[in-house]
């Protein structure tokens, strides 16, 4: 039995895990860095403990402080969420050594599947095809050049130590290899403490399709079906859906079967995801296994009706699955749009600032998981995800229309977000038809920009009216301040500009 769960994470995923704990009647402990003292996950939790200053390395990645927080709050289980220490075998082992239940697979499994070399070997032995070149990673430029000329350009460089697009580069000719290799190696080293990278053949028009698996300690393993995650920027997912509009029923069946074999072979427990690349001819390759809860798990929950976090906690507390493969019957269609603090029309540049206004959508078929509130400062310390907006529909078309409506209702003012970008994607004919691949944003970025510009309903006059009324109201409030009337004048602007350029 688990009597109290410490959530070793922050933001929207910490909020999401607290919700399941509430429903299971298990108190939840939040941890927070000094930058997150008033973040929603702290406000929502039953207990909260500060674990260090803002930089992740001193707080959310600080194993000693997190274990100390668990001891002092008498938490008997730790849920790592995703990111941070979720796939860190040493952390999982330290949790177990402290006599605390780890909500996730065994450290041995984390190690086996976290190392891409052993994971690919295991997948290959389980009957899954592997991408050419992707067998041995290297930190040596000479070896990289040799692999590249063997499999042929273009090639993809990616970190051996982890995923999430960090350290990834596409190289189209040999001249570009040395600088790209150097940069990828340095990003890999700083993010994953492992400078080795893979040099792989680029798969043409690939689709990123993944299978959600779930396992208990008794060896029961089930598939929760697939998710199509091909709308990506910088190799990071931004829009996901289930079912996949692309793969055939035969491929779907086969991927599910392989994922269950792989999960069984590595002795998996809890929620995991097996990722595949599927090319334009429906040929598929094993990519990696994510040994944790996935960001996009809500769409699987929407079509199946399961609470995967609650199931994770049940399995971690030693219970067997109370359902079988035949109980998982996906219904309808679900979409997720990730809401990042990034400007989707300016190369996804991160945006920081204060959330001045937040209005959330509601109604039929809507789910919003977020970790922000009005007044919250968005800092550059952490991943820029603010939340995830998901919609369900009986059909794909209904889910898309509902998403457009929900994106319209969602107002986040004060930081730039990916909301306008996601709206443009929802209206794009290629996305609507469902025949997009991972180069969608690169191929149609200009279309999306144009759509956004054309849909700039001419509201200039309304905005100007609002500003004029606002300024009139501001001025009438402080009639005896002589500078109030000039607060916006060119004189002050000159002064300010002079100071800035001094």
């Amino acid at each position, binding site marked *: 039995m688990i009597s109290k769960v410490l959530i070793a994470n922050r933001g929207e995923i910490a909020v999401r895990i607290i919700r399941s704990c509430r429903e299971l009647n298990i108190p939840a402990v939040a941890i927070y860095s000094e930058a997150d003292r008033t973040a929603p996950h702290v406000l929502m939790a039953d207990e909260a403990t500060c674990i260090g200053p803002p930089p992740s390395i001193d707080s959310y990645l600080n194993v000693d402080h997190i274990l100390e927080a668990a001891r002092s709050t008498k938490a008997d289980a730790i849920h790592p969420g995703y990111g941070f220490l979720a796939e860190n075998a040493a952390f999982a082992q330290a949790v177990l050594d402290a006599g605390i239940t780890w909500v996730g697979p065994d450290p041995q499994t984390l190690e086996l599947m976290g190392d891409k070399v052993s994971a690919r070997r295991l997948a290959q032995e389980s009957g899954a095809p592997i991408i050419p070149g992707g067998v041995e990673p290297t930190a040596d430029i000479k070896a990289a050049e040799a692999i590249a000329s063997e499999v042929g350009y273009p090639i993809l460089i990616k970190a051996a130590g982890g995923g999430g697009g*960090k350290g990834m580069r596409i190289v189209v000719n040999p001249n570009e290899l040395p600088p790209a290799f150097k*940069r990828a190696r*340095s*990003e890999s080293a*700083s*993010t994953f403490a492992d400078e080795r990278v893979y040099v792989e053949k680029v798969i043409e028009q690939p689709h990123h399709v993944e299978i959600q698996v779930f396992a208990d300690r008794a060896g029961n393993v089930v598939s929760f079906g697939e998710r199509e995650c091909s709308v990506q920027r*910088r190799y990071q997912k931004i829009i996901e859906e289930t079912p996949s509009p692309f793969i055939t029923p035969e491929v779907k069946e086969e991927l599910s079967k392989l994922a269950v074999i792989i999960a069984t072979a590595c002795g998996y427990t809890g929620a995991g995801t097996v990722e595949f690349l599927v090319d334009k001819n429906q040929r598929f390759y094993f990519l990696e296994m994510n040994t944790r809860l996935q960001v996009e798990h809500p769409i699987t929950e929407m079509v199946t009706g399961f609470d995967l976090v609650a199931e994770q906690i049940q399995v971690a507390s030693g219970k067997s699955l109370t359902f079988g493969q035949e109980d998982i019957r996906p219904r309808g269609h679900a979409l997720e749009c990730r809401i990042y603090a990034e400007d989707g029309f300016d190369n996804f*540049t*991160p945006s*920081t600032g204060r959330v*001045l*206004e937040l*209005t959330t959508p509601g109604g039929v078929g809507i789910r919003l998981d977020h970790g922000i509130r*009005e007044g919250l400062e968005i800092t*550059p310390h*952490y*991943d*820029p995800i603010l939340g995830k907006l998901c919609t369900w529909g009986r059909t794909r078309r209904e889910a898309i229309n509902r998403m457009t409506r929900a*994106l*319209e209702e969602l*107002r986040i*003012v*004060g930081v*730039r977000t990916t*909301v*306008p970008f996601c*709206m443009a994607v929802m209206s794009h004919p290629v996305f609507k038809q469902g025949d997009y691949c991972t180069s969608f944003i690169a191929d149609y970025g200009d279309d999306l920009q144009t759509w956004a510009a054309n849909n*700039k*309903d001419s*509201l*200039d*006059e*309304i*905005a*100007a*009216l*609002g*500003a*004029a*009324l*606002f*300024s*009139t*109201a*501001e001025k009438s409030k402080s009639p005896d301040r002589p500078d109030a009337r000039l*607060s*916006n*004048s*060119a*004189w002050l*602007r*000159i002064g*300010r*500009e*002079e100071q800035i*350029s001094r």
Partner: protein
Amino acid sequence: MILQATVADRVLQLNISVDDGKPRVEIEGHQPQLDLVKLSPYSYSLLIDGQSHHLSIRPSRDGYMVDLRRRTYHICLQDELDLTIEKMGLKDAGRDRSGHVTAPIPGLITAISVRKGDKVVAGDQLLVLEAMKMENEIAAPMSGTIGALHIATGDTVEKGARLVDIHVQ
């Protein structure tokens, strides 16, 4: 009072008066029925001839920012005095023409590849700015000689912070 509102590349004329305690605005020749109600510190409901609009309005460095239907409008309001000053050409006075390389995003300086006095050509890497775990190479926007370096490795910088000066020959 006559105000000139600049929204992107559009210039709009507004004539504001107060009638019975309520502001009246004439915009582009017509005078709509207006009702502005504050909802929260930055949020407003504006009815224009009965059409309902939900706006966020806040002052910014050079005017106002208005959020309306998922779009942010940057609005510069100028009265007659402002316009006169602008016409006199004072606005550009004192502007430094040497190249200032500023931080496009907030982040951490992880490497600096130039020193004061180095000659660079446009496109040369100046430094690496790490933000949200991505390394961003900051390149020279123009050719010239490196003047002052305003940062050191390990510094955290805000968006817009001056990083490096380049003197153009």
